[in-house]
């Protein structure tokens, strides 16, 4: 029974692609393509100008090359920057108008878009290639004044909010991939939680890359106004293809006074096959700004997919007494590579941050934790605690830790700990003695190793993530 289950799970079950007619922008990156995207999305003029400004800057920028996992040069002219199902020329008013093929796709992915089928009431915004296909539970949210829609819709309906906050955390003058995203971003989610509102349900986005030769460049913007709370989940999958696909998203979070944002990601992009062929390049920029006093931003990520994961969800702790948290599990197997971690920039007084990172590498993979803790001169009484543990399985893989610690304030404390080890024989022996087979024993120990992070995930996600952790390591033991 278990063997069958394992066999089922071992295969990347989200690897199918959907045959659907697409509208694509002309291949390549140029001013015309940006105009095409802007035009098809009926964007206001300021946004087009903003995009072009980013594009102009991109022309003089160089791709960063300090990362651990090296990859073949990406030909940016050989990509489609916009791809959308044909039936999407006009966004469907409701789910009944949605292309049945799309509904089928999401059903296969386990994301039924029909609201009534949802168990626990999680509002979903589903993004298919370059467009958002459906957002559920809109009415319930609107009643509370919460705006949850695709960013394209927000640009049309709430231009003031978008104009105010877009690029306020990740400006167009940022690094290469962030600027690329600013120039060509297609869709993504937009969330605004008004003052004093506690969002009654989990909000969630589901990203799906379908078309080939396409890069996905979504942009997510979440604003939590004074005293509000929102928990946001993100999931991602892609079809199995031989080529490497680029995913360069930008996520901006803004927390005002006393607000709290909890952002969880379960990333399961196609990791490539056993020999490291294909898979997604996941080069994402995620940054949260604790702008107001007593605000809090918490990132939780479970990274199991992608050929290369290269991202550092960060917190800028600008408001006094603000809190930043980062919980991460990153698992690499076969030929996967990951260079991930976080940045905690302490600017305000009494700011606190906590980093818990768990890395597991198996097979031929390579995993790097890279993090920055920077306590600036005026950030009195700030503190940081960092713990990053790595687990190695086999001697063909690598686990690396590269923390940068900068302390400029004498009244602040930084503590950092890191360990690297393998699963101890004693622990395995103990479990096996009590009747578990070696794979179950490893599963149990790994789950224990990750527990601190898994606990941070919302219930439904935690179960999925726990399974995912098990699956990703199948076959790497023994």
């Amino acid at each position, binding site marked *: 029974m278990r063997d069958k289950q394992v066999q089922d799970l071992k295969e990347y079950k989200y690897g199918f692609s959907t045959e659907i007619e697409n509208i694509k922008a002309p291949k390549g990156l140029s001013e015309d393509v940006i105009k095409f995207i802007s035009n098809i999305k009926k964007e206001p003029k300021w946004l087009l100008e903003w995009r072009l400004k980013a594009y102009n800057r991109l022309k003089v920028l160089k791709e960063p090359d300090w990362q651990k996992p090296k990859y073949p040069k990406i030909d940016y002219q050989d990509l489609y920057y916009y791809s959308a199902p044909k039936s999407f020329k006009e966004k469907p008013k409701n789910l009944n108008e949605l292309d049945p093929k799309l509904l089928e796709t999401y059903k296969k992915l386990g994301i039924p878009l029909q609201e009534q089928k949802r168990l626990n009431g999680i509002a979903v915004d589903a993004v298919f290639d370059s467009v958002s296909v459906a957002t559920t539970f809109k009415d319930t949210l609107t009643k509370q004044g919460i705006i949850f829609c695709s960013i394209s819709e927000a640009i049309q309906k709430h231009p003031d909010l978008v104009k105010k906050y877009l690029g306020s955390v990740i400006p167009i003058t940022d690094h290469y991939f962030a600027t690329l995203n600013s120039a060509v971003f297609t869709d993504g989610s937009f969330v605004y939680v008004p003052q004093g509102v506690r969002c009654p349900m989990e909000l969630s986005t589901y990203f799906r890359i379908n078309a080939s030769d396409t890069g996905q460049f979504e942009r997510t913007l979440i604003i939590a106004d004074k005293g509000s709370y929102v928990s946001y989940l993100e999931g991602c999958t892609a079809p199995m293809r031989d080529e490497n696909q680029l995913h360069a998203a930008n996520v901006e979070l803004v927390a005002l006074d006393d607000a709290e944002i909890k952002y969880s990601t379960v990333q399961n992009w196609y990791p490539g096959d056993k020999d490291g062929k294909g898979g997604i390049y996941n080069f994402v920029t995620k940054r949260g700004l604790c702008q107001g006093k007593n605000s809090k931003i918490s990132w939780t990520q479970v990274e199991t997919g992608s050929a290369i994961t290269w991202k550092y969800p960060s917190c800028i702790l600008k408001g006094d007494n603000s809190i930043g948290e980062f919980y991460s599990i990153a698992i690499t197997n076969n030929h996967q590579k990951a260079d991930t971690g976080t940045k905690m920039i302490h600017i305000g007084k009494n700011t606190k941050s906590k980093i818990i990172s768990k890395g597991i590498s198996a097979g031929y993979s390579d995993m790097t934790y890279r993090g920055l803790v920077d306590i600036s001169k005026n950030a009195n009484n700030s503190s940081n605690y960092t713990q990053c543990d790595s687990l190695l399985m086999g*001697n063909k893989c*690598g686990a690396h830790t590269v923390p*940068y*610690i900068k302390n400029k304030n*004498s009244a602040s*404390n930084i503590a950092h700990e890191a360990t690297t*080890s393998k699963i101890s024989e004693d622990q395995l022996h103990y479990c096996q003695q009590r009747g578990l087979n070696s794979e179950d024993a490893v599963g149990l120990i790994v789950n224990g190793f990750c527990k601190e992070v898994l606990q941070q995930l919302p219930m439904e996600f935690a179960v999925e993530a726990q399974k995912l952790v098990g699956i990703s390591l199948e076959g790497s033991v023994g």
Partner: protein
Amino acid sequence: MEKQLRTDFKKIIDSSNFSEKEIITKEKYLNKFIQYGFPGKKNEDWKFLDLNQAIKSNIENLNYFNENLPNEVDSKIYVDGLEHNKIVFINGRIEKIDFKYEESDKFEIKDQFDSECLLNDVNSLVDLNSALTNKYYKIQVKEHYTVKKPVIIYSLTTSKISSKNINIRLDFDLKSNSSLRVIDYSMDKSENNFVNIVYNFNLEKDAILKNYKLDKEENNNIKYSYNNINLDTNSVAENFILSLGSKFIKNEINCNLNGKYSSAFVNGIFNLDNNKNHEIRTSINHLNENTKSFQLIKSVLGENTKSAYQGKIFVKSNAQKTDGYQLSKAILLSDNSEFNAKPELEIYADDVKCSHGSASGSLNQDSIFYLMSRGLNYKEAKELLINGFLLDVVEKITDNEIKNLIKNIMGLKE
């Protein structure tokens, strides 16, 4: 800079008697240095401490040629209370070599150029050193010999020189089952020079090296020291760095644990005040099974000071059963002090035990309160705590004689 370098290089060649081959090699290193120049912030290894900037802003018209006039060695400089062998450098020139405590047949000093000892692809400063050193010495300890007294290498600069680049290079060969204690003792009377020191140690089977570096005297020089240590089976290298006096110093230690059961220890202290900017960078490469490393670095940072610690533990895929440990701690005493750390692990083997820790912050107020409630004043309480904090590192020194010497130098109480 290039023009100055080339003319000074020519002067060095003219004033020494190098063979044709040596000159070609030296030229190669010179070209390499000219290509890369002084490392600056853009270079990852110099992220926390920009040498290029420091040289530009502190040294006007840096000169690379010293006339190398002989200097009198003043015996007042010698360390009291410890019988020792001496090597005296004055302004980069060896003035005295004195090994009177040792058996002469167990000990050899060569001054032949040996191309095998050149260090390639380390960084541009080592290239500069290879290009411009005019004299080359290699100290060889023969099999099964324990050098009886420690060797103190005095490196002095006199007030005569300024805006000079001084390059010092020494090699040490420890044959199997030999042992050597080295103390690097720098005393500077000069200002605004750039001192570039490269030592290379080769440890054969079962050899023991104890390497202590003391930078004690207040001075306005910029210094860089690079120590490369190759360790064969079952050999041990113990390093201790005391970083106090110079305005700007970077100590770099690179250990290659090539043989099984070899081990490396690096302990260091920064105790800084007055605008000083110091760094220690270590890289410990575990290249074989059952190797061990231990590092402990502590900083006490006063007004306007900056210290940085970059430590890397590298474990090759065949280096199973590696045990690597690294801890850095800092106390920031002033609002203008800054501590930077980059403790790095790069691990390719699974059966290893590697960990690192780093902590920085102010003095513990509870501890101060505790001491003050027992009658100490604030200053005494603070001093006692710092004393204890630093003593921890000094206690790691395994050689009692030298441990006491260092305690005296630092004024540490037990």
